[in-house]
């Protein structure tokens, strides 16, 4: 029997490390979910093509908060080209699992990151 959220997802949600507006961000990706009404911002700071810092602000469910935190953690230290290659699957694995109805929250976080990178490259 699995609980609704994995221990790791709950842990992330309860104690996210990367939340907060980034005042000196180089770019921000703003995304929202039409279906459930969530709002998310992913901030990135880039140096020499490498993401040196990332943070988020998320108005959404526990999964949205947990996956926002995961996306930030996973891209810090990555080249922006590699960062956009990140997949939902990798993110979900980081959380052990997500309920089926919550996979779109991971997509939202990923889209937030991609939007940030796109804005950076503009």
């Amino acid at each position, binding site marked *: 029997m699995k609980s609704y959220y994995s221990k790791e997802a*709950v842990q992330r949600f309860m104690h996210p490390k990367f939340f907060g507006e980034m005042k000196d961000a180089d770019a921000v990706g703003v995304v929202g979910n039409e279906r459930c009404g969530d709002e998310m911002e992913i901030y990135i700071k880039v140096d020499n093509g490498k993401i040196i810092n990332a943070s988020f602000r998320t*108005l959404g469910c526990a999964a949205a908060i947990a996956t926002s935190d995961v996306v930030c953690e996973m891209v810090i230290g990555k080249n922006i080209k590699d960062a956009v290659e990140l997949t939902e699957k990798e993110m979900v694995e980081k959380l052990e699992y997500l309920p089926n109805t919550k996979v779109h929250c991971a997509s939202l976080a990923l889209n937030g990151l991609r939007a940030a990178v796109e804005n950076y490259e503009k």
Partner: protein
Amino acid sequence: MKKIYLDYAATTPVKANVLEKMMPFFTDKFANPSSIHSFGEEAVFALDDSRKAVAQFLNSHQREVVFTASATEANNMAVLGASNNGHIITSSFEHEAVLGPCKTHTDVTYLPVYKEGVVKVEDVLKEIKENTTLISIMYVNSEIGTIQPIKEIGEALEEVNKNRKNKILFHTDAVQAANYLSCDVNNLKVDLLTLSGHKIYGPKGVGVLYVREGSKISQILYGAHQERGHRPGTENIPAIVGMGEAIRSIDVNDSKKTKTMRDKVIDGITSSISGAALNGSRENRIANNINITFTGVEGESMLIALNEEGIAVSTGSACASNSLSPSHVLLSLGLSHRAAHGSLRITLGSMTTEKEIDELLTKLPPIVERLREISGR
């Protein structure tokens, strides 16, 4: 950690005396009431005794009480059985078990419930047409706890019906009302009324449809003769026994005590947390319901954070529903998707203590504050 259950509108535990009364009917007294031997007779007595308890509660005749397999089934029987292909008047925030069957009809008027979450009697009267056959308005809304003017509608309809050849039937879903409000069908002047076992400290999978003598409702299930043909199928005797005992155990004194705690929660939350507003009327509100929208936070995340503290509540947020759409009840109040997104429903029950309420009032504000920091809103 001692867990705290504050979701009594979803379901209630079976009371000890109710369970005790049910137990023999699984084993020693297992018979089918349709059997004419002595075993069957025992089951007949039990069935009759429960029917008597329900009839007393409703101030009705015993033969007007139909046991069903759930309130959902009872609501379906009422809507599909009484609509007679005519025009139905209902409200926009009924339970799915009424809205669902209504959707199979084309001629349905869904009344507005306004910001307060209360249907207006004049709106009901205004919508009556030549071919209107059924009016179905819930007694108490399950999400926001607002009490509807059932007696007033019943009285007005009685006048209207005096001058009509084809009488309009009046149904009310009283599932969320039964613990705290009188369900005297003659006082309310309803023809059909729905109850559910598991919302009144009885078992799940049993309900009641009260059908006033002389009301013409067509069958929706076909089979044997049980429940005068209204609800064929061997009676679920243990559950029906539980329903009867649960109804007998309803204590009107619970209402006052619960209401005091409810008010403490409403005042406590709205005074200690900014951007927190009660959904639905405060005056016309059932004793155990608190439904509050918080700005800048999403409901499912509050629910999960409270759950980590051992406190169980519910939310109308889209994020907590499988369909990812916000509660139709909150939208019917004119709330934006965003406001529905930040809602929390807290429902109290007979086991709720002052200490549990204090725990909630201590634990909730820091959760909202933390989530607002995360949302930056």
